[in-house]
Structures are given as structure tokens and as C-alpha cells.
């Protein structure tokens, strides 16, 4: 029992540390054992140093399969300089300070941006979480902004059996009766669009933010999404594909969120005032 308790965390930590290594030729060369370096897959990472003209992988075999797979593995190669190549050959075990962010760089947006093994399922999981949250949260926000009169129509102020807030339909068709919620965009299709927009916004911090940040982004983001959608579609013009109210909104929101996460990571030492605020915020 004692052995299990002592060994299991060690094994777990070792596995986690290994999985945190980025899939770059630099770390493969430094940390992967000899036998693993000789595998045919690793030969795809062979790059010559501009100064020493040495290969970054000392042991490699040429297989025909490598030549086929070569273009597929190139995304894992990161920009390198001559100094970095110099470090490889001297086997300095220097861990790149932003290695985890390198992994995160290729992650997000479900499958498409699940570019690394470590974050592939994380991207899908967060996307599902965002979708579930938006499906439940969007109708409430839609009702709220509808009652503000943005959509240029008389708004019923009560909730009841006969008014528009009773039914939720799959899509917002023009043939729906004027007294139903779908005539005002309160439908599942728009909820899914809100989820897509939030997934776009969260993808910029995927791998650097957790469930709490996801929840905050969803709550505030859906409010802004619906306000933006109603203003654009009812007051300004048309956006047939959702380029503006889904992707542009989510993209700029994600850009600002990423900047805030960057500032948070860059400031590990907190002031007394910030510490007190952090206590209340989680």
C-alpha cells in the first residue's frame, strides 16, 4: 500500500512531464532515448544546422515511408536559429520556457485546432462544454435583448402560453408566426452559432485557461454575441454566413482574452490589493 502510494504519483508525474514536451526536433533530440530516436518517425524531423551542417538527429534510417510522411510532420517543427542548433549538438538539456505554449499554439477549436496529442481531447471537450452552456443560456439572453426593442417590433413583456417565449424551434424561418420566439431568432440554430462564436473566443486561450475562465467567457460572451447579432441583422445589414457576428466578434474577443491571459502569466508576483481581489474571484 505504501509502495503504491509512493510510486503512483511519481509515475503520474513522469508521464505528465513527458507529455508536456513539445513535439519539436529540439526536445526529441535531447530527451528521447536512443532507441526512440532511431524510430522511423523521428527521421522526419531531421534538419541541418546552418553553422555546423550537422543533422539534429544523429541516428536515423531512411525509409520510404518517411518521405511520404515528411510533409505531414513538418508542422511540428518550430522556427530555430543557429544558436538553438548549437545547443542540440552539445546535448544541453535546456527546456524551452514556453514549451507548453508551443503545444497550445497548435490547439483549439475542437478537432481542427487539436493539433497536438495533449490538447486534442481538451479542445473537443471544451467545445462540447461551451455548446452545452450556450444551448441553455442563449434563449434567456435572446429574450433579454429582444425586450430592449432592438429588433424594431412590439415586445410582449410577459411570459406565457400564448406569447413568443413559449416555444423554441430548431431554426428561425420566415414562415414562423410572428408571435413565436423563432421570429426573433430565439432558436437552436442561433444558440449553436453563439456556441461557435464562444469556441472561437476560447480557442485563443485553450491550453492556458481552465473551466472557470471558460465559464466567465461564456457568460459575458453570449451577452455580447446576442446584442451584436441583433444590431447587425436588424439595424445595420446582412451577414449571411456569420462572418461578423460569429467569427469577427469571437476573434477580437479572443485576442483581448489572450492578451489578458498573457499579462496574468507574466505577472506572478501580486500586490496586496490584487491578492485580496483574487481571494474573492477564485
Amino acid at each position, binding site marked *: 500500500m505504501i509502495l503504491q502510494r509512493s510510486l503512483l504519483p511519481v509515475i503520474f508525474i513522469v508521464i505528465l512531464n513527458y507529455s508536456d514536451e513539445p513535439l519539436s526536433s529540439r526536445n526529441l533530440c535531447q530527451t528521447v532515448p536512443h532507441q526512440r530516436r532511431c524510430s522511423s518517425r523521428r527521421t522526419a524531423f531531421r534538419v541541418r544546422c546552418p553553422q555546423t551542417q550537422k543533422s539534429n538527429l544523429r541516428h536515423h534510417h531512411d525509409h520510404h515511408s518517411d518521405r511520404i510522411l515528411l*510533409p505531414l510532420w*513538418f*508542422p511540428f517543427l518550430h*522556427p530555430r536559429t543557429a544558436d538553438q542548433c548549437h545547443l542540440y549538438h552539445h546535448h544541453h538539456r535546456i527546456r524551452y520556457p514556453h514549451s507548453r*505554449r*508551443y503545444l*497550445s*499554439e*497548435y490547439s*483549439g*477549436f*475542437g*478537432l*481542427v*485546432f*487539436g493539433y*497536438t496529442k495533449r490538447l486534442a481531447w481538451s479542445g473537443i471537450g471544451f467545445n462540447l462544454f461551451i455548446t452545452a452552456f450556450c444551448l441553455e443560456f442563449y434563449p434567456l439572453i435572446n429574450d433579454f435583448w429582444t425586450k430592449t426593442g432592438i429588433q424594431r417590433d412590439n415586445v410582449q413583456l410577459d411570459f406565457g402560453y400564448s406569447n413568443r417565449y413559449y416555444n423554441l424551434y430548431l431554426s*428561425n*424561418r*420566415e414562415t414562423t408566426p410572428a408571435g413565436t420566439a423563432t421570429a426573433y431568432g430565439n*432558436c437552436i*440554430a442561433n444558440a449553436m452559432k453563439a456556441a461557435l462564436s464562444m469556441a*472561437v*473566443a476560447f480557442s*485563443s486561450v*485553450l*491550453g*492556458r*485557461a481552465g473551466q472557470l475562465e471558460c465559464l*466567465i*467567457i461564456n457568460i*459575458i*460572451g453570449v451577452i*455580447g454575441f446576442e*446584442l*451584436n447579432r441583433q444590431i*447587425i441583422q436588424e439595424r*445595420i*445589414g446582412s*451577414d*449571411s*454566413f456569420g*462572418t*461578423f457576428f460569429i*467569427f*469577427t*466578434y*469571437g*476573434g*477580437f*474577443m479572443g*485576442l*483581448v*482574452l*489572450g*492578451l*489578458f491571459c498573457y*499579462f*496574468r502569466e507574466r505577472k506572478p508576483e501580486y500586490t496586496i490589493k490584487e491578492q485580496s481581489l483574487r481571494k474573492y*474571484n477564485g
Partner: protein
Amino acid sequence: MLFSLLGALFIFALFPFLAYEIDAYIFQNKFSTYVSPLMLILAMGAGIIGSLCSSLLFNGYLIVRDGTHGLIAGAIAVGSGSLYIVNPTYALITGFIAGVIQGIIQNSLERYGISRGYIFSTVSWSLFAIQGFIGGCFSAGWKRLANDKYSYIFSSTGSVLKNYGEQYQFYAMLVSAGMGIGFGLLAGAIIYLTNFQYS
């Protein structure tokens, strides 16, 4: 990476459904229900080619990430103006330019920041934010062209061309960008005050 290729395949197959918009624009003209998805498919293909071209120019080899992102870039850039595109060449031009710009940004600006540790976005910020800006500019141009030369093919009852001028496409882009930045500041300020979550 295989997941991302699989996801790109899904997006290529399913993204055009977003442009159907049977909700609001089905009565604009006779062909709006199927022309917009078709333009999107063309633009996605052109976006892949454009981004891979810039990837080859910058790196000397192909990066799959540029291809998958170029696909989405082409779709986003064309999507907002897909109702007003009456010639498939317009969609190809827009998608190709969006893909090239996406490849240039990813291989120059983002790589410059990554090499110096200035990573503030794990997924390309240019893919959605900048491509939205490009989509606003192009859709304004295509709408102007449709208003000037091809207005007769749009239904007289449709409000897409009649009620709003081409400048409103640009306004919509600016409003979305402002909203995104504003609500991003609000959410980001709260996130900044939270601690890291360890599990």
C-alpha cells in the same frame, strides 16, 4: 495533427451549411439558397491553395497547419459577401487572397512572436479577427458591384440590396470588432483577477 486534418475535412463538408441562412434570406432571389454555399466551397479551396503557396514561399516546405487555417480563412472572408457574389471568380479571388494573407501572418508575425516568447493567443488571432476584417472589405466591394451591375437579378422584395448600402458591410465589421474588444475586456478583466486553476 491527424485530428486537425479530420476536423478540416468536417469543416470543408459542413461549413457551407452555415451559409444557407434559410432563416432570413431565402426570399432574396431564386438562387441564394445554393449559390452562397457553392461560393464558400470555392473560396475554401482557393484559401487552401493560397495559404500553402505562402507557406512554401516562407518555409520551403508545406505546413499542414497553414492549409487547414487557409481553408477557414477563405470561408470567413467570403461568407459575409456570399449573397452578392455573382461570379465564381470573385469567390476564388477572395479566398486566395485571404489564404495568402493568413499564411503570411502565420509564418512571419506569429512566428516572430513565438520565437521571442510573446505568445498571447494559442490559436491564430489572425484567422478570425483579421479575416473578418478582410471579409468586411471584400463583401462591401462585391455588394457595390451587385448594386451597380447586377441589381436586376435580386428580388424587389428583398432587403439585402435595397435597404442597406455597401458601406454597411464595413460598419457591421467595425461594430463586431468593437463589441468583441469591449466584451473581451470585460471578461478578460475578471479572468485577470482569478488564480490559475490547478488540478
